[in-house]
C-alpha cells in the first residue's frame, strides 16, 4: 500500500488513488466538480441576464446605451479571461471593500463562489450579448411589428414574442457559451478557488501521480461536455420543432 511511487503501480494503484473513500482522492475531485458546476451554472445564468439587457441596449437602446454596450462587449472580448478574472477578483473585491470602508461600514469577505460567478458571468455576458443580438435580429420583422401593432408593452412583447421566437436561433450559440462556461471555471484555479482543476492539482501534488489525476480531471470535464451536448441537442431539436430543417432546404 505504501508504494507512493511516481508512477501508480498499474491499474489497481490508479483506482486506489481515485477511490472516493478516505485514502483515495476521488471525493476531493467530485467536490471540486460540484463547485465547478455551481459556478458554471451561475455564470451562465448571469451571462444570460446581462446578455438580454445588453442585446436590448444594442438593438433598441438610445445612442449612449448602444455605444456603452459596444464598449463593454469589445473590451471584454479582447482582454484575456484570465486577466479579467484577476482584475475583477482582486481589484473588484478591493474596490468594494474600499467603498464600504469609505462609507463607514465594515469590510466584507466576499466568498470565492460568489466572486467566481460574478466574474465569469460578467465575461459570459459580453458573448451572450452578441449571441442574443444576432438571434433577435433573425426573428422575422413582421412578428415584432405585429406584436407592437397589438399594443403590447415592451415587457409583454419580450416575454410572449421576442424571447420564444429567438430561442431556436440563439440555442447553438448559447450551447457553445455553456460549454465555454464549464471550461472557463478551470481558470478560477489560478486565483485559488478550489474547483475541479485546483483540487486535481493538490491531489496530484500530494501523491505525485500527476498523470493519473490530470487524466481523471480531463475525463470528468469531457464527460460534462459530452453529456451537455446530448442534452443541448435534444433541447435544440425541441425548440426547432415545426421549423424547416436547414439541411433539407439546401
Amino acid at each position, binding site marked *: 500500500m505504501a508504494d507512493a511511487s511516481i508512477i501508480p503501480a498499474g491499474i489497481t494503484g490508479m483506482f486506489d488513488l481515485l477511490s472516493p473513500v478516505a485514502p483515495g482522492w476521488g471525493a476531493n475531485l467530485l467536490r471540486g466538480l460540484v463547485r465547478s458546476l455551481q459556478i458554471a451554472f451561475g455564470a451562465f445564468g448571469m451571462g444570460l441576464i446581462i446578455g438580454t439587457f445588453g442585446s436590448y441596449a444594442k438593438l433598441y437602446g438610445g445612442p449612449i446605451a448602444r455605444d456603452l454596450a459596444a464598449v463593454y462587449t469589445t473590451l471584454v472580448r479582447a*482582454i484575456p479571461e484570465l486577466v479579467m478574472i484577476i482584475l475583477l477578483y482582486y481589484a473588484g473585491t478591493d474596490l468594494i471593500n474600499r467603498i464600504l470602508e469609505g462609507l463607514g461600514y465594515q469590510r466584507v469577505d466576499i466568498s470565492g463562489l460568489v466572486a467566481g460567478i460574478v466574474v465569469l458571468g460578467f465575461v459570459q455576458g459580453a458573448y451572450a450579448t452578441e449571441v442574443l443580438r444576432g438571434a433577435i435580429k433573425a426573428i422575422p420583422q413582421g412578428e415584432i411589428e405585429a406584436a407592437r401593432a397589438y399594443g403590447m408593452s415592451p415587457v409583454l412583447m419580450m416575454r410572449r414574442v421576442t424571447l420564444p421566437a429567438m430561442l431556436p436561433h440563439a440555442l447553438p450559440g448559447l450551447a457553445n457559451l455553456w460549454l465555454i462556461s464549464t471550461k472557463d471555471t*478551470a*481558470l478560477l484555479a489560478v486565483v485559488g478557488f478550489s474547483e475541479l*482543476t485546483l483540487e486535481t492539482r493538490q491531489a496530484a501534488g500530494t501523491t505525485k501521480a*500527476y498523470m493519473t489525476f490530470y487524466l481523471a480531471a480531463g475525463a470528468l*470535464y469531457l464527460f460534462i461536455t459530452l453529456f451537455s451536448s446530448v442534452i443541448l441537442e435534444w433541447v435544440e431539436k425541441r425548440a426547432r420543432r415545426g421549423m424547416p430543417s436547414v439541411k433539407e432546404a439546401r
Partner: protein
Amino acid sequence: MSNALGETEIEVPIETFPIHKEKDASSLASKLPPHRIVLILIGLALVASAALFMRWDWLPQYGGLILQGLWRTIWILVVTVVLGFLLAVPLGLAQASGPAFLAIPARAFCTVIRGTPLLVQLWLLYYGLGSLFPQYPWIRGSELWPYLRQAWPYAVLALTLSYAGYEGEVMRGAFAGVPKGQLESARAFGMPRFTIFRRIWLPQAIHRALPTLAGEAVLQLKSTPLVATITVVDLYSVASRVRQDTFLTYEPLLLLAAGYLVITGIIVMLFRRVERLIPSKLG
C-alpha cells in the same frame, strides 16, 4: 468609395427620399455625433486621470522585462497559430473526406481537445509528461533533454494542440463547404489529386475559414497568459511579478489589459488586410 461620384450623379434626379443620406454625409460627421464626442472625452479623461493620479514610477525599472514578456507572448502566439494551422489542415481534411480509420481518430482528437479546459491540458503535459520523462534514462541522455527540462516546449505543444483541435473543426466545415462543381471541374481538367488540393480545394477552404481564423487567433492570444502558470515568463507573468514586487493592485493589470487590447487590434487589422487581398466574389 471610388465610385461614389458616379453613384450620386445617377441618384440625384430620382431621390425623393434621402436614401443615401448617410453615404453623402462626410464620414467623420456621421461617425462622431455629439454624444460620442462626449463619451470619447470621458474615456480620455479616465485615461488621463489614470496616468496622472496612479503610480507609474515602476515603469522604467521594469521596461526591459515588459518588452521581453511582450516579445515572448507574441512569439508563442505566432508559432502556435502557424503550427496549429498546419496540423489543422490534415485534421479537417481527414474529417471532411478521409477514410474512417483517419476520420474517427481526427474527430476524437478534436472532441477531446474541445471538451477539456486548456489549463488542464497544459498542466497534464507539463506536470504529467514532465514527471514521466525523467524516469527513462534514454530520454535523459538524449539531445532533447535540455529542452524537455524547460517549460516553453510544453507551453508551445499544449497551445498548438489546442489551436489545432479548434481549428480542425473549422477546417472540416470549410473543406466540406467548397462547392462540388469546383472540384469536379478541376478533375475534368485532368489535374492530379494533389494539384486539385493545392490549387482549388485548400485556397477556397482557407478563404471560407478566414473570418473564423481571425477570431480563433484572438482567442489564442487570450489563452497565452495561461502559460504563466507553468513558469513561462510572458507579458502576463511580468505583470504579476510587478504586482508582487511593488504591491500595486491596479496599475500593472490595467497596463496588461491595455497591452492585450492593442495586440488584439493589430491581429484584427492584419486579418482584415489579408481578407482584402483575396478577391471576394466566389461562386
